[in-house]
């Protein structure tokens, strides 16, 4: 079985099932990160959000990041999934899991992967607010909020 892969998901992420893919007799540590949809952003009350992506390039770039993590850190397995489509408050938007013989490498690799995913993978987030028009996070728009993640 692949020891690392990155996928976009159109249906709810299942952290418990994903975590089981990390199981390995050589592993002494697993670190999992879940990114959730929160109900506020830059002072605005958020009601829901939508993720859009370019699937082909996003999955290739995500896979590249996981491959980098495998070569940089002493880990056994690394998996990542990111949602696209409409999500509600509390939904899991992104999941990263890493297993390793020891916890240090697992923490470091998990942090590396989520930071690089957020910075590099072509995924865009449109937030819907209680008040005012919806906005694309991080993008500059005339006369609207230019928000930061």
């Amino acid at each position: 079985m692949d020891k690392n892969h990155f996928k976009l998901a159109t249906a709810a992420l299942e952290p418990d099932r994903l975590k089981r893919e990390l199981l390995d007799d050589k592993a002494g540590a697993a670190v999992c990160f879940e990114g959730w949809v929160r109900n506020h952003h830059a002072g605005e009350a958020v009601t829901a959000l939508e993720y859009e992506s370019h699937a082909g390039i996003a999955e290739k770039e995500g896979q590249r990041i996981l491959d980098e993590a495998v070569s940089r850190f002493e880990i056994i397995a690394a998996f990542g999934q990111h949602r696209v489509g409409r999500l509600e408050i509390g939904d899991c938007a992104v999941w990263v899991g890493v297993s390793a013989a020891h916890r240090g490498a697992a923490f470091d690799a998990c942090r590396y992967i989520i930071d690089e995913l957020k910075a590099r993978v072509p995924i865009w987030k449109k937030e819907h607010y209680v008040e005012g028009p919806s906005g694309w996070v991080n993008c500059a728009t005339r006369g609207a909020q230019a928000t930061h993640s």
Partner: protein
Amino acid sequence: MIELQAEYFAAFREQAGCSSEPVRTAAGTVAELYAEIAAKHGFLDSMTRCKVAINDELVEWESPLAAGDKVLFFPPVAGG
């Protein structure tokens, strides 16, 4: 002048009012093409915060253009 196809995503798609369009340009690099298109459609994001792909591969802004290329313009990403 060459002819190519420009594709827009997320905020760029909404600002351009279309997801793709044919473009005739004298631009030699992707960066020059972005400057033309940003002026035309009012894109405000600095190129350094955006990404670009040619024919479904991410490329550098100084990459040359060829007739018939499909050039994908990605606004600042916001995964996670």
